[in-house]
């Protein structure tokens, strides 16, 4: 069975067009299910977000600034970041030192192996 436009990866295959067809079918099914729901449930209170029965907060100030996103991730990885970030000193001569360092290391490896 040879379907055209299929990407052979050696271990598997990937066909975006078939995937899109599957996506469209799933979308169609979801739309069908939704269209069979109760039409009177689409107005009034049902449109409001449900936040455990609390009042919805005002919109203003509701935007979370970027620094606060993934606070947990950076906090959990603190030891990793506290070691990694200091390497990025921003000093031009350090940058040159890294380049020459890697070059020296590779020279040693290439000449000994």
């Amino acid at each position, binding site marked *: 069975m040879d379907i055209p436009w299929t990407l052979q990866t050696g271990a598997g295959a990937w066909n975006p067009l078939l995937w899109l067809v599957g996506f469209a079918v799933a979308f169609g099914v979801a739309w069908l299910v939704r269209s069979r729901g109760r039409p009177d449930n689409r107005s009034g209170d049902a449109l409001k977000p449900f936040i455990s029965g609390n009042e919805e907060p005002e919109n203003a100030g509701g935007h979370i600034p970027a620094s606060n996103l993934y606070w947990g991730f950076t906090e959990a990885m603190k030891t990793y970041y506290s070691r990694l*970030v200091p390497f*990025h*000193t*921003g*000093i*031009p*001569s350090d940058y*040159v*030192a890294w380049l*020459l360092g890697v070059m020296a290391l590779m020279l040693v490896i290439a000449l000994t192996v």
Partner: protein
Amino acid sequence: MITRLLLAMPFLTVAVLLLLALGALLFKRNLIKMLMGLSLMESAVNLFLVAIGYRQDGVAPIFTNVPQTLMVLPTVQALTLTAIVIGVATSAMMLSFAMVIYKKYGTVDVRNIRKLNG
């Protein structure tokens, strides 16, 4: 022995120049001195290029009225000329960068040219 040593002289000079250049690039705090190191490095490479084209007792590679067949290599000299031109452009640009940085940051200490980091 002496001849061999003399023939090796340009390459020793290249090595010394390279060491000086690397020293200036890595350990000098003044940006201008770093750029001088860069210029030294250019000279080292240019000298290396010309030196590998040298043939003992060779003459300049001009073919009219040539007295003998042994000539130095013309290709590397052409390469060196190109490299010199590129070097001049680089130096001019980098020095103008240093000038602007001194105007805006008030320093040429490379350890302070690090507004961008992290």
